[in-house]
């Protein structure tokens, strides 16, 4: 899978990605990942962009060891000067703005972080149910092993929710705008997935699937709408 992805990349990107991998760093790049100069990436970092998605790592970004950045459903941008701690998990789309600081072992699900924001360690941001909705529509065609991993996801952050609710060490005034920023993409996602909860939608989809067996391929784009 990875080799096929790499073969579809533009040559400049591919050479950059492979240089980074074969050189001093010990991290893995897969898909369309664009890393600017002077970005420091720790060992064991996994940067993965799904087909049609993009990861952009800005200038001077610092990503701690063992972090995972997985772009799906859009582009994931880490702007200049942002710092991600050890073991940070970022999934979905969104922007981590300039000079933001993400504490270690935080999980960001499909959300954006404001400038200069400080996220406490071990916190969970974003809607934990977003992935399962997208999964139901079949918008992203994931590999079987990925699908397994995704299904484990909603169970794991359930503990993180309680941790996030405990008063963070940082001043509260800073936390509220972050949470707003985190809530906005989550609402957008819910707006797109809202059609799934409409009574009769599932039955209609089954009917359309029977009438037009190849329709899923043609209209997979409007599922995001």
């Amino acid at each position: 899978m990875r080799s096929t992805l790499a073969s579809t990349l533009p040559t400049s990107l591919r050479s950059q990605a492979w240089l980074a991998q074969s050189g001093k760093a010990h991290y893995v790049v897969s898909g369309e990942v664009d890393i600017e100069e002077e970005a420091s990436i720790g060992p064991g970092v996994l940067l993965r962009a799904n087909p049609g998605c993009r990861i952009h790592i800005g200038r001077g970004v610092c990503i701690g060891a063992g972090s995972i950045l997985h772009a799906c459903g859009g582009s994931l941008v880490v702007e200049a000067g942002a710092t991600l701690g050890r073991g940070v998990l970022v999934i979905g789309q969104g922007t981590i703005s300039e000079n933001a600081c993400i504490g270690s072992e935080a999980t960001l699900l499909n959300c954006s972080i404001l400038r200069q924001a400080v996220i406490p360690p071990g916190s969970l941001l974003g809607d934990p149910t977003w992935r399962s909705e997208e999964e139901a529509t079949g918008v992203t065609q994931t590999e079987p092993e990925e699908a397994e991993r995704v299904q484990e996801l909603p169970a794991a952050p359930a503990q993180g929710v309680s941790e996030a609710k405990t008063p963070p060490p940082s001043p509260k005034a800073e936390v509220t705008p972050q949470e707003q920023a985190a809530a906005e993409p989550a609402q957008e996602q819910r707006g797109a997935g809202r059609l799934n909860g409409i009574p009769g939608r599932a039955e209609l989809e089954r009917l359309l699937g029977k009438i037009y067996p190849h329709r899923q391929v043609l209209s997979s784009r409007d599922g995001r709408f």
Partner: protein
Amino acid sequence: MSTSLGLIQTRSFPVIVRVADAMTKSAGVTLIGFEKISGGYCTAIVRGNIADVRIAIEEGIEVARQFNQEEISSLVIPRPLPNLEVVLPISSKLSQLAQSRGYSRLSNLAVGLLETRGFPAMVGAADTMLKTADVQLAAYETIGDGLCTVIIRGTVSNVAIAIDAGMYEAERIGELNAVAVIPRPLDELEQALPVASCFVAQPVTLPVAIPQAQKEEVQRSERAGERIPVYLEPPGTP
């Protein structure tokens, strides 16, 4: 009439129509009609033998649950008293009234229902549906609580594609509440659904030839009408 009575109530018109479709196809029950009190509450009324009614109501509840309806209330009365039938609209007179309204030109076609909260979304969705596929807009129905349902008729594939397109348009304009597609409705269900008056073909009375007494024309003889020139001789001429 000693047949049993079954009632099932949901909070959406497409859902109750779909439930009624499942009920009429699951057992030998007669669909009496839909009772729409305001607030979005719709009730389907079926009559039949007690075993049939029980099967139908169980089936209806199952379908309603599949449609994410939380508030389902249902009732089976094995033998309702005549007084109940006289006062409440649960007797089969209702369906007789419905049958006497004329023949719908849109029968034997699939039914599509799309319910929105708010009128503009419904109109927008109806417009999109008509422009998307070869369907006819049969009627619309309001059930209170801001819910209005547009009913389209056409072949199954046309209806399915139209509802799919209308769904996105309704969601863009306002709030979509429910959709349903019934590929082949039974006659009873069709008669219980509203149809706009422009699609109802009233029975036309054929012209009957009544023998009418025709006046006999008096035949004049040819000679009677013949004018004979008369020349009068002036007096005094030899």
